[in-house]
């Protein structure tokens, strides 16, 4: 991942005026730009992604190493206050993604405007802030019912789920990704403080990726298997248009956005570690050591299900086979995954609470995520993974420029 971002950085420099990149069609906000003069940081701290663009950053952009998913409920008294708060959210996000000198005030001047967590300079550190709305925001409180995106509803509980209200759903989701934890925590505190009284925190979960220096290809999840190998090509504009970005099926304000599915999927890791390698591989469908589909040589090799119709090599109910059968009829249900591993406390039975923050972007949740989910129902792996929270969200198109804000189209 880091290698890819470096390439993008070099590409940006080669093309000259970095700031303009964010508005080149096709590159969208995915282009990394050189840090501006406001951030005298070096190296990774200076990496930045433009907040503004046709699409929001943090969707096609390569995954940074750390993430926070924070869900909020709107608590503003009325529509105008909600709009003000969402505008503020974008304004703060834009500043954080650009970098600036921290305002630390002086004794006798009240609370410091900046928390000071990052010292005197707030460096972008590859931060992306990606903002979305849950179905509940479009209830009767703010008069937005008629503006609800066509495909947005509350995430249902699927048969194998154990959803907890305290970490499910929400009116507004903020996905924060960056190179370091302190950048994320600073951003979360800053954004929460700026929107106090408008957005009330509902739940959050923090995620991390394995170091990209560890091995090539996709990173490993906490089951010890490579995860994300079969993702669609984010560099293919036509594919992204087909699979990720909303179009004419949506109201005008919602075109160029995407739907996000977040699922907090606990892995029963102690149990899993007591399962034989052979059994694990048959449940997943990949070789644990090399990551290759069973019977193939390399991670990215085609599993070639056509040559294995009986499932002798890769069982018919193996996870990768159900998730993506690679038939003509099912390729339209592909999703763009951008998940993170998570780890938090210990449960009542003294078992580790860790797993995957599954994140998928798609143009149509019913056609894509839910189709995959239906195929996966009852797969052998369900004994080892328990979805406990998350939600469905609609992520509007990006802010056009520094005067615009994410979601402004809702309030026109």
């Amino acid at each position: 991942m880091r290698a890819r971002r470096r390439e993008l950085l070099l590409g940006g420099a080669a093309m000259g005026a970095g700031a303009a990149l964010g508005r080149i069609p096709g590159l969208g906000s995915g282009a990394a730009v050189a840090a501006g003069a406001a951030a005298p940081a070096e190296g990774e701290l200076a990496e930045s992604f433009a907040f503004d663009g046709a699409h929001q950053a943090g969707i096609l952009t390569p995954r940074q190493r750390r993430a926070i998913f924070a869900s909020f409920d709107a608590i503003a008294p009325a529509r105008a206050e909600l709009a003000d708060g969402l505008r503020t959210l974008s304004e703060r996000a834009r500043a954080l993604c650009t970098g600036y000198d921290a305002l630390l005030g002086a004794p006798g001047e009240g609370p410091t405007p900046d928390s000071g967590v990052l010292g005197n300079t707030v460096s972008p550190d590859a931060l992306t802030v990606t903002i979305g709305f849950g179905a509940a925001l479009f209830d009767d409180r703010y008069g937005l019912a008629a503006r609800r995106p066509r495909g947005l509803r509350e995430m249902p509980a699927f048969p194998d789920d154990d959803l907890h209200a305290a970490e499910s759903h929400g009116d507004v989701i903020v996905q924060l990704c960056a190179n370091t934890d302190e950048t994320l925590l600073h951003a979360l505190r800053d954004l929460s403080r700026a929107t106090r009284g408008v957005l009330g925190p509902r739940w959050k979960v923090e995620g991390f990726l394995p170091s990209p220096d560890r091995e090539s290809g996709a990173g490993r999840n906490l089951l010890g298997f490579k995860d994300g190998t079969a993702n669609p090509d984010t560099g293919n504009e036509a594919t992204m248009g087909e699979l990720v970005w909303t179009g004419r099926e949506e109201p005008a304000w919602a075109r160029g956005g995407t739907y996000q599915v977040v699922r907090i999927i606990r892995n029963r890791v102690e149990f899993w570690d007591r399962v034989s390698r052979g059994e694990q591989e048959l449940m997943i469908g990949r070789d644990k050591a090399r990551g290759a589909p069973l019977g193939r040589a390399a991670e990215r090799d085609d599993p070639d299900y056509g040559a294995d119709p009986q499932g002798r090599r890769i069982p018919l109910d193996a996870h990768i086979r159900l998730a993506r059968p690679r038939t003509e009829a099912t390729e339209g249900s592909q999703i763009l995954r951008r998940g993170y591993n998570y780890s938090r406390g210990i449960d009542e039975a003294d078992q580790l609470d860790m797993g995957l923050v599954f994140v998928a972007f798609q143009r149509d949740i019913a056609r894509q995520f839910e189709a995959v989910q239906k195929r996966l129902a009852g797969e052998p792996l369900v004994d080892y993974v328990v979805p406990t929270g998350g939600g469905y969200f609609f992520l509007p198109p990006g802010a056009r420029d520094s005067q615009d804000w994410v979601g402004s189209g809702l309030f026109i």
Partner: protein
Amino acid sequence: MRARPGAACAALLAAALLAGCGGGGDHDEQSTAAANPPAQPLEDLVRLSGNIPRVRDADFARPTAAYRRYVDGELRSMQGEIAALSAAVAAGDMAAAQRAWLAADERYESIGAAYGAFGDLDAAINGGSGGLPGGVRSPDFTGLHRVELALWGHGSTAEAAPFVARLDRDVAALRRAVPTIEIEPLEYVLRGHEVLEGSLDLQLSGRESPWSGAALRALRGNLQGTEVVLGTLRPLIARRSHVVAERSEASLAALGRALRRLEGDGGSLPRWDRTPERARTEIAGLTAAAAEQLAYVPEVIDPRPPPARKSAIGAVAAE
């Protein structure tokens, strides 16, 4: 609307203090949220022109005297509620005992701004078991929350009886001490937001009243107390910043409206642990939002660094 002498008293007190303070002064301060930074620098909120005299300790004489009268009135009411609690416990009437306890606990929470000055008596009346060796079995665990444990946790009025008697004596001792309790001016101004910080830390976390789930009742008391403190300080705030005064009042009013939406018959409030998720988020969010506005009050009143904190030195000793 509940007929609550305390609430009426608070409103009257605030009104009395506000009389004579011009409400419609010049509003030359910024009144919309700035794009950057997340919290506004103080200089954006205060009046920069004109000669505003520095605050003197004497300026706090009226506010703290008014607050002292308020505390005395609340403690007098609390004594009545404890008498009802005592009678209910003696009669073995659990429902009446719990009703009286909730009223007494909310009453005590409404005088939060003076806790720092109450010292050991505060621990005896309102202390938790968390910091005591042996926890709930510690002989030093007394007061409201020991009674709460007996009534809700153990379902026993008999177990509560001796602790109610002790509570009655401690509240009487506190009331006798109120006229001589030292209220340090610059600490008093900090209490404006610290009471609600306490609501977030102790009440809405479910820590202080785990057995009764009375966090919303306590928060309503905390809110009333905060409004009284703010009312006494309003003239001092408004001479430098109408924005801070108005935003603080508006944020407290918003919290009050959210609480009233949850109220049932006779001002009852649901248990916090059985309050729906969305309502919990709203209450916690509005409490935090109010604390955020009130955080500017100390330096708006007096832009000097705050004094060193006093611990329990000079405070009243428990019996």
